[in-house]
């Protein structure tokens, strides 16, 4: 089974090179043997074959080594062992020579197999350790970002239970509001973690259908109305913007993450601008904010998991990573540009496809 899997695993080309080399080396040994034949003892010729066999067993697969052993034995027997020109053997001791050749081929190739397997295991372990590192970063990030709201919720709610009677109505309300606020914050973070996990494990089926970006923008604005209440939002979408073939729910999520990001990182009262336009074979959607911006060197790292912008105080840094994963599913891309006057523009591009067949036009 292991051998089979390994053989399948090996690149086909490498496999053929192994067999070709086994054949070639056996032929070369034969040639050398022929040159040696008059002056050297037949045992030394066997040694030449053994040497070629060892080389094949060291460098190639077990199959090539066995082929090499069989060819060597066959050629040695046929050409050198008396009676020459037949596979008949006069002397039993040559049987031992053959057995040893085969044994050497098998032992060396199995040693090499073991070593290759260990190498593969070590590589797999390293990959696993890498995944572990990412996971523990995620866990650290989650536990930090979830523990804070949990601490507030536990503290505030236990205060209400233990000494609510002694508090004023305003105090009680303030505590309850803070529990509510933190719980909502936490709920959003948990949804993001779940979403990222689903995106990464392929647990999301992408449901492509015709959608209108204007409609999605409207839906996001309605969803984030509370969060964007203290910003000025301007929408710039041409009237004749074509439909795009996307999973509207996922793209809405991506856009919502960008808008939420803009709201979170810019001071109240500043402008958040949403645009959509066709550029070549793509539709580009842009969310521009006019906040403090981020150092240029950070722009590329922004979209990797767990990266937090410098001014970020809360939030699992997953929003942008989710955007990137969603755009990857759409064969699109997402990136960030620094704006000349300090803000930052997050953009994503979706491939444009041929327009769908329209319903028959009706008389007005």
């Amino acid at each position, binding site marked *: 089974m292991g051998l089979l899997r390994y053989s399948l695993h090996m690149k086909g080309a490498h496999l053929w090179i192994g067999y070709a080399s086994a054949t070639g080396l056996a032929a070369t040994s034969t040639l050398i043997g022929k040159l040696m034949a008059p002056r050297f003892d037949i045992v030394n010729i066997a040694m030449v074959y053994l040497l070629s066999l060892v080389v094949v067993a060291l460098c190639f697969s077990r199959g090539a080594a066995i082929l090499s052993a069989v060819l060597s034995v066959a050629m040695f027997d046929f050409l050198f062992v008396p009676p020459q020109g037949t596979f008949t053997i006069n002397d039993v001791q040559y049987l031992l020579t053959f057995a040893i050749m085969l044994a050497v081929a098998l032992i060396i190739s199995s040693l090499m197999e073991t070593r290759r397997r260990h190498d593969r295991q070590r590589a797999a372990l390293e990959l696993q350790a890498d995944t572990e590192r990412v996971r523990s970063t995620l866990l650290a990030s989650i536990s930090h970002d979830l523990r804070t709201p949990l601490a507030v919720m536990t503290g505030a709610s236990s205060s209400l239970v233990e000494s609510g009677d002694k508090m004023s109505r305003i105090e009680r309300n303030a505590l309850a509001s803070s529990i*509510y606020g933190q*719980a*909502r914050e936490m*709920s959003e973070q948990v*949804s993001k973690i779940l979403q990222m996990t689903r995106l990464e494990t392929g647990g999301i089926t992408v*449901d492509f*259908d*015709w*959608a*209108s970006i*204007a*409609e*999605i*923008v*409207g*839906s996001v*604005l*309605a969803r984030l109305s509370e969060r964007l209440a203290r910003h000025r939002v301007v*929408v710039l*979408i041409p009237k004749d913007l074509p*439909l795009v073939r996307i*999973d*509207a*729910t996922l793209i*809405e999520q991506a856009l919502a993450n960008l808008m939420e990001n803009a709201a979170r990182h810019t001071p109240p009262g500043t402008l958040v601008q949403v645009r959509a336009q066709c550029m070549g074979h793509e539709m580009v959607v842009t969310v521009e904010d006019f906040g403090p911006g981020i150092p240029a060197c950070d722009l590329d790292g922004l979209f990797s998991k767990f990266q937090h912008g410098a001014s970020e105080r809360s939030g699992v840094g997953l929003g942008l990573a989710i955007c990137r994963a969603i755009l990857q599913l759409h064969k699109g891309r997402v990136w960030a540009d620094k704006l000349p006057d300090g803000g930052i523009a997050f953009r994503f591009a979706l491939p444009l496809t041929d327009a*769908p067949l*329209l*319903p028959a036009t*009706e008389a*007005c």
Partner: protein
Amino acid sequence: MTHPGATVLIVEDEPEIRRFLRSALGAEGFKVVESATARRGAIDATTHKPDMAIIDLGLPDYDGIDVIRQIRAWSPMPIIVLSARTQESSKIRAFETGADDYITKPFGIGELLARIRVALRRALHATPTQHTITLGEADIDIESRAAMRAGKAVHLTPTEFRIVACLAKHLGMVVTHKQLLTEVWGPQHASDTHYLRIYLKQIRDKLEVDPVQPRHFITETGIGYRLVESQRATPGTVGT
């Protein structure tokens, strides 16, 4: 608008969730009937004759969808689904079975109360004789097929009108893409979602103050559309 004494049936297996629903709805003047299982819920719906039902989907004995189906077999009472299931497919199934609204857990009580009021108002006013709807500065007379906006007649094409009428028939409720397409264009067009994208844009351009941030023709992304009526600050005469 309040609904003093309206009875609300809560079908939910989680006692902690029932507890705060009971307190909050009680504080708002509703009578509450609680069922912890789907079987019990279906029975309580017939014996208590509630004004509306709030139903969890993940119930211990069988799915909340079946409770909705059983209630819909005999009653048009408003049904709000309360579920931890966030997938669009689950919502679509609930709407197509006859749910009026769908709220995902966790939720704020303010949101739930607002939806309860909308649902009860719709049930109260959804009499077969209601043929005019008010959408901000626009009025639509379903029967005479006339639309007015800020006192001026607005021309809607026959298809646009069929869409508005279909949404108006389920005023305040989500109509799924499939339901809308089937009703307006027929079952062979049930998956031609792009028809809706194009027509809803035209309708919004004609009837919404800000077509990009619609207040009446609401998009339920991945699910369908919902028509939300609103009263003007100073109600004028309706219709033609």
